């Protein structure tokens, strides 16, 4: 990568405890995030994208989670830091935007206070200065009448306004990295467009990098510079956004793109990905994890121990099965052929 | 397997049935060591109490014997005698039986009333719910204990049945409120809407769709209430406003402790009854808490 990496994720593994055993929800993930770029993590629920984001922030409950590997942020390994050392980075260097703006805000605190709280520990400002900065921030994230909203409680604001407040909290100290976990999923489509515009604008103005976590390929197409497609805890494809949408290679990426109805063009039939994402404790730990869902591709076409390989500069794909992949003509629908239980 | 399953006769015999949630609850209960222990202890106590009371003559026990006033435990009187020379052990057995039976009766009566009222108010909502809730809110702010005592004092022909009715008149409200809240929540779920669009009548929806989903909550609530009701009954009897004197309760034995001399020097009169109440209530509560955890775990599963 020509850009200087801001965050280097190296062989990250995040495991959760289920009935006494640990299962990796994020398995051997390596990624780099450069300065001022938007990297999207895409995948269906349970693919590990949120678990990855929370581990960067150190937000997993330590007693039930194991995080291994290395998270090199501006030269420090975040995983080696104590909580109080991490607190100097959280909120200041890295901000986070959550999915549901209603639950992400403390119902008993005014909006102003919640934004100021993120400055309390990172900036040496007087009360008046903090208030001034907060109101400027509210204005900047597009909230009308910021002086009034400053004294409001979250429940008095609409969903879109709340999400703007959550964003204001995250960028209060102008962080170098912003992690946005499904920032528009809970919002209506017109509000989603506004929030996407706002994030893009802030990224350009503040020179922030964004890790965007989403299942919505439309949002990815609009926002991302580079994209990591995740399936069952692994990255299966990693390339710039244009490549992912115009020259995807991995069967999962290709299937996903084929299965989504588009408002721009009309498809007669949608592609159906067979089967389901297996639950965490039933994931195959060996071989290609996508193999069960493309059963018409012979087992010999998969690698026994698939690795993420750079197939062309900046374009990484896992497993060799992509070389043999094709869409079957008969998309049997109805009848028993339709996805076994 | 698959071929067989298509034949109508094969189905049902071949296919393993999934365990019902109630049997899951039972399994959880048995796996909880404290709860299992409590269940065993409680069963033993109840077997002894109900078994022995078959052979004990209540008339004989409550007969005053002035030759054996306040005699300490002996071979003849296992737990000594009280101020009237009556056998404490016999009274303990009869008292425990009465306390438990009456506690159970109150629990069941209030359970049925609470269930009906709660289901109706929660399911139909609107003005029905409004009126019922006003009544419940009113009863809940009444000074319960004092009113029960007043009622007990002024009811003309006072007996066990009136006591049960007086208690039930106050105690159904909590359950009705709980069931109503849960029914209200269930009613909003789409499976109820689905049943309506499928043409299922309301009474069937209430009984066969909603009620099964409340069963674990009801069981937990009734269990914890059973303990509470035994406590309230014996407490009132202790104060002298519970069961009439002709029906001894565990509270009757404890109430002898209002005499400081008995409390201080004649421990055998009041302490065994106190401990028996305590043990029974602890056992029932431990079972109830285990059921509660089991019910929660089921919710986390589904």
């Amino acid at each position: 990568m020509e850009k200087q990496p801001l965050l280097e994720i190296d062989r990250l593994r995040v495991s959760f405890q289920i009935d006494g055993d640990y299962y990796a929800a994020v398995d051997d993930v390596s990624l780099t995030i450069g300065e001022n770029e938007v990297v999207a993590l895409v995948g269906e629920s349970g693919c590990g994208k949120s678990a990855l984001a929370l581990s960067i922030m150190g937000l997993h409950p330590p007693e039930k989670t194991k995080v291994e590997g290395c998270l090199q942020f501006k030269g420090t390994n975040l995983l080696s830091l104590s909580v109080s050392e991490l607190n100097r980075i959280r909120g200041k260097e890295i901000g986070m935007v959550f999915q549901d703006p209603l639950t992400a805000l403390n119902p008993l605190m005014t909006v102003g206070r919640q934004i100021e709280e993120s400055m309390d520990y990172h900036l040496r400002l007087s009360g008046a200065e903090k208030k001034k900065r907060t109101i400027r921030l509210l204005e900047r994230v597009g909230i009308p009448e910021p002086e009034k909203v400053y004294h409001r409680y979250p429940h008095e604001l609409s969903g879109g306004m709340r999400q703007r407040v959550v964003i204001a909290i995250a960028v209060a100290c102008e962080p170098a990295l912003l992690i946005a976990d499904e920032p528009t999923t809970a919002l209506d489509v017109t509000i989603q467009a506004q929030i996407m515009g706002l994030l893009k604008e802030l990224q350009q103005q503040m020179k922030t990098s964004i890790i965007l976590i989403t299942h919505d390929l439309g949002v990815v197409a609009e926002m991302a510079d580079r994209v990591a497609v995740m399936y069952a805890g692994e990255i299966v494809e990693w390339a710039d956004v244009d490549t992912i949408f115009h020259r995807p290679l991995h069967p999962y990426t290709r299937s996903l793109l084929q299965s989504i109805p588009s408002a721009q063009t009309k498809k007669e039939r949608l592609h159906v990905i067979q089967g389901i994402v297996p639950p965490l404790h039933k994931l195959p730990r060996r071989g290609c994890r996508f193999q069960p869902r493309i059963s018409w591709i012979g087992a010999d076409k998969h690698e026994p121990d698939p690795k993420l390989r750079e197939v062309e500069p900046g374009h990484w794909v896992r497993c060799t099965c992509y070389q043999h992949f094709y869409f079957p003509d008969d998309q049997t629908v109805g009848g028993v052929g339709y996805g076994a239980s | 397997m698959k071929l067989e399953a298509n034949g109508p006769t094969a189905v049902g015999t071949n296919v393993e049935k999934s365990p019902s949630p109630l049997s899951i609850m039972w399994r959880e209960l048995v796996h909880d060591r404290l709860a299992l222990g409590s269940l065993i202890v409680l069963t033993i106590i109840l077997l002894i109490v109900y078994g022995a009371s078959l052979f004990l003559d209540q008339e004989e026990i409550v007969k005053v014997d002035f030759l054996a006033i306040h005699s300490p435990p002996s071979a003849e009187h296992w737990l000594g005698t009280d101020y009237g020379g009556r056998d404490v052990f016999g009274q303990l057995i009869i008292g425990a039986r009465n306390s438990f039976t009456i506690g159970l009766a109150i629990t069941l009566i209030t359970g049925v009333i609470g269930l009906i009222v709660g289901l109706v108010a929660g399911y139909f909502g609107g003005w029905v719910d409004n009126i019922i809730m006003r009544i419940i809110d009113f009863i809940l702010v009444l000074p319960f204990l004092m009113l029960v005592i007043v009622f007990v004092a002024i009811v003309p022909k006072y007996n066990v049945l009136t006591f049960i009715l007086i208690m039930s008149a106050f105690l159904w409200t909590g359950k009705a409120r709980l069931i109503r809240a849960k029914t209200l929540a269930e009613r909003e779920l789409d499976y109820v809407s689905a049943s309506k669009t499928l043409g299922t009548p309301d009474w069937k929806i209430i009984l066969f769709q909603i009620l099964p989903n409340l069963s674990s909550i009801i069981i937990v609530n009734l269990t914890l209430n059973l303990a509470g009701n035994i406590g309230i009954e014996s407490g009132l009897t202790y104060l002298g406003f519970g069961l009439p004197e002709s029906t001894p309760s565990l509270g009757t034995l404890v109430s002898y402790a209002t005499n400081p001399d008995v409390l201080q020097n004649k421990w055998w009169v009041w302490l065994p009854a106190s401990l028996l109440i305590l043990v029974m209530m602890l056992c029932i509560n431990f079972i109830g808490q285990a059921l509660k955890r089991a019910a929660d775990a089921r919710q986390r599963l589904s």
Partner: protein
Amino acid sequence: MLKFILRRILIMIPQLFLLSVLIFLLAKAMPGDALTGQLAANPKMDPQTLEEMKEKLGLNDPVHIQYIRWVKNMLHGDLGLSYTHQQPVTDLLAGRVGNTVLLSAAILILTYLIAIPLGIVSGRWTDTWADKLIVGYSYIGYATPLFIFALIMLFIFGFHLGWFPTGGSVDIQVEEGTLAYYLSKLNHLMLPALSGALINTVVTIQYLRSEIIDTKVKDFVKTARAKGVPERHIYWRHILRNSFLPIAAFLGYEITGLIGGSVFLESIYSYPGLGQLFLQSIMQRDYSVVTALVMISGVATLVGTLLSDIILSAVDPRIRIE
């Protein structure tokens, strides 16, 4: 806020009315009326005078007129006459109410002094031995009936060990107003208050614990951590403040429990308060006192629930708007 309180008081009026009607009817159903007191003082009254007095007292009036008169008198502080004590009920209560209020306040304060630290420890460090101990205590406390616990406490600490007095609210020898007097009062208060609080507190512990456990996984706590807020501030500002909400809401309802509890505690510890007076009066069939006490308890409960709602609306901004 003011509007909310006013509306809330408005809702209370029909409840108050129903309560007074219920108690009035109960009073009518009780054997004996305002004359019973007079009769006791002067048993040799002839039927003629009795009838005259009945007429004079309005006992022959229609029920609703009697009810209105009863309410009017009550509002003027006239609760009738106690025939056993031969003095106005109001005076009788005035002498006792201080003790009950003192006992209830002590129980309430101890309840929170015990519940808050234990609930926090148990909710914050779940599954530690401290938590298991606290949960164990709360289960046992929840199962134990107050009167049994109080009796056993009296048996052990009052009689057996002799650490505390076994009855009364103050030594008779000490002079009122002296330091010794207050110390003696405190000494008499300790055992009943502790017995009440140790049982009363477990419900609050359980609530606080489960609230903290629920709150600490909420999204806004994650937001706070993502801001870099240190752990102790996370607990104080975000988790505990939100967890205290239901506890605050219960404060008023505690009064209901305290009234019931005081009947048991005052009876067991021979503590001269309203609860004890209530039991004595009902046994002596002194019904004007009984009626007054039930009415007062009912009003206290209503005021308690009112207080609850006001406290809740004061701490929770979401309710203020409604």
